[in-house]
């Protein structure tokens, strides 16, 4: 080991232009695939145990469709996309506005879930321990809610930075990656909503 060195590997001649995808996008796509597999298992468990509870209450007795919260969450996908577009156009004021809108809409969704759980637990007496429906319902919706919380924390941090003027066009790719995660959380809700409130009721 006389010295550390590397042979130069630079053959002459013209090279074709060399572009590769942004690593944030690919990394987030990988995370989304892995998270989808986790959700898939919880969804399979939910569907498998439909109607298998030995005691009540059953989904059709207690579940109410959270339409308002769902509309808010799905709209937040549009607002976060608008924020991405404004950041690319370097319209920072509009970016901050749409980002704040996203955080507000996400929070409303989370509050509506909290309200629903409060009603189920204290008025309908359904907990994780009540029956298989309770077990699978709280774990699936809770798994989704925990992802909403993680997304909200990251979006709120970005909002804080934006309010203090620390976000600029150089952060476009990073914010775009974050928006992918938020779209994923929304997309999962479409599936969870269909399984729990449409098929499962």
């Amino acid at each position, binding site marked *: 080991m006389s*010295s550390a060195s*590397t042979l130069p590997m630079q053959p002459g001649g013209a*090279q074709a232009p060399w572009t590769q995808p942004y*690593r944030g996008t*690919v990394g987030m796509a990988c995370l989304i695939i892995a*998270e989808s597999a*986790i959700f898939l298992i919880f969804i399979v*468990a939910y569907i498998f145990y439909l109607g298998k509870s*030995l005691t009540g209450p059953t989904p059709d007795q207690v579940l109410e469709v959270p339409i308002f919260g769902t509309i808010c969450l799905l709209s937040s996908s549009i607002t976060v996309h608008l924020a991405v577009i404004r950041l690319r156009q370097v319209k920072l004021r509009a970016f901050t506005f749409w980002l704040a809108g996203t955080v507000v809409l996400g929070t409303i969704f989370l509050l509506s879930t909290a309200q629903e759980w409060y009603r189920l637990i204290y008025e309908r007496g359904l907990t994780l321990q009540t029956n298989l429906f309770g077990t699978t319902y709280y774990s699936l919706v809770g798994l989704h809610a925990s992802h909403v919380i993680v997304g909200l924390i990251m979006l709120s941090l970005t909002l804080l930075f934006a309010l203090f003027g620390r976000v600029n066009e150089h952060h476009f790719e990073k914010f775009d990656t974050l928006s992918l995660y938020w779209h994923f959380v929304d997309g999962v809700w479409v599936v969870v909503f269909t399984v729990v409130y449409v098929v499962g009721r």
Partner: protein
Amino acid sequence: MSTIPAVKGVDETQATRRARLPARVIHEWLTTVDHKKIGILYIGYALIFLVIGGIEATLMRIQLAQPNNHLVSPQVFNRLFTMHGTTMIFFVAMPIMFGFGNYLVPIMIGARDMAFPRLNAFSFWVSAMGGVLLYFSYLGGSGLYAAGSAPDVGWFAYAPLTAKVFSPGHSTDYWTLSILLSGVGSIGTALNIVTTTLCMRSPGMKLSRMPLLVWLYLVMGGLVFVTISPLTAAQIMLTLDRYLGAHFFDTQAGGSAVLWMHFFWIFGHPEVYVLILPAFAFMNEIVPVFSRKAIFGYPAMVAASVGIGFISLTVWAHHMFTVGMGAAGNTFFVFATMVISVPTGIKIFNWLATIWGGKVIFATPMLFSVGFLFQFLIAGLTGIILSIAPFDWQLHNTYFVVAHFHYVIVGGILFALFAAFYYWYPKMTGRMMSETIGKWHFVLFIIGFHLTFDFMHIPGLLGMPRQIYTYEADRGWGSWNMIVTIGVIFQAAGILVFVYNLVRSYFAGKVAGPDPWDAWTLEWSTSSPPPDYNFAVLPTVRSRRPLWDLKHPEDPDSDYEL
């Protein structure tokens, strides 16, 4: 033997050895985000657990060598096989494969580091803490009030044995948490490997020019996302059951024990492929270099690897033929399992075709590779036998199954790993491993391996179930078990020789130089060990064997590219 033309390195770094305080060295390794150091950490950590898991196996084999033996109690035996299985899969095989992947993938695609170096360090330390947690169960597993120390529910931990009622205390929780942590680390590292491969390749390194090792790690990474995640989900459910009173696997409340089996094997079977794909990866690099030929059928190899990745997701329930899935379910999983042997067969034939007509050099890496080829073939054949549902009804949960999967894991994966150690050790340390000691290692290990695992099939065929702690003398299993245990002595001796070789060669091995095997991939264009930054100037690649092009400007591979 051709050599690299005398090109002066452009980034000569003066070899002034810094004064290295032990504390400073330790600090450097604890805080490193360098993919090479993290790779070595992974490998070292896995080797420690390999010895621990090996000691557990040896204890079990001594216990089983004779009928009516009472060296260990049934309770201790249950802990031994649970810890042995969990340790070997999650804290030996996974980290050692990730270790080699960490070290080799960036440097083989001409990158300076992984895509997310800090995530890489995080993944390693999370996995490492998982292993520590598993063994801490020996101290903390009894909790404050209940019985039991280490986990004793088997490595597949079937419900409802894992319920709080049947497994009181915290030992099962240590098992669950350690696997959760290891899973988080695995997904992080797999994410890193896939992203590095897709986004960090040096100019000209198209996907169609990547070394096959990198392709295999790409498929392995993709497979980790969809196999480790279900296990993570199932462990979350089990934790909810045990701590919050949920009913996922609680048969008293209508929960299903079979659902756990499905969730576990949806992870469990593709996991075998997660481990064997890197073993294939090592073969794809080592076999051509020691046959002095380019790999035969590169596109077929890539297609077969991707095919294995997909088909492996459809075979899990062949672990469950005795559950009673019905004729349609059984038939589907029989056929899916048989179909996966097609791409695997393509690989074996391509390796044989690579060796065919080559100037084969039987150095230690090649010896282990040839061992791999034979043993992996036999392991595959017993796999085909077990995939036939009626045959599996007869042999399910016998030592035939144990012999089969150890043939895959030891005869296949471990032999490929030994080949990889002998092949890349010079790159990682700058010193060659001793060929003489290496050949001793090979001879001892191959004798031990065949004594143990060839003869283990027979008590299985005679009906000896797995996971029993002893048996009666009139069963006629005694002499076979004695032979199996004698094989362990040779294997243990082989491992000791190997460890001695690792340590001795680090201090007294022949200095390797940058390219001791006259190989063709980018890692051999750097010094041994490579500088921290790998490449001062990113290499430009024009073919699948960039170093061949450099050594043979008169006949570069790029002339033959389609």
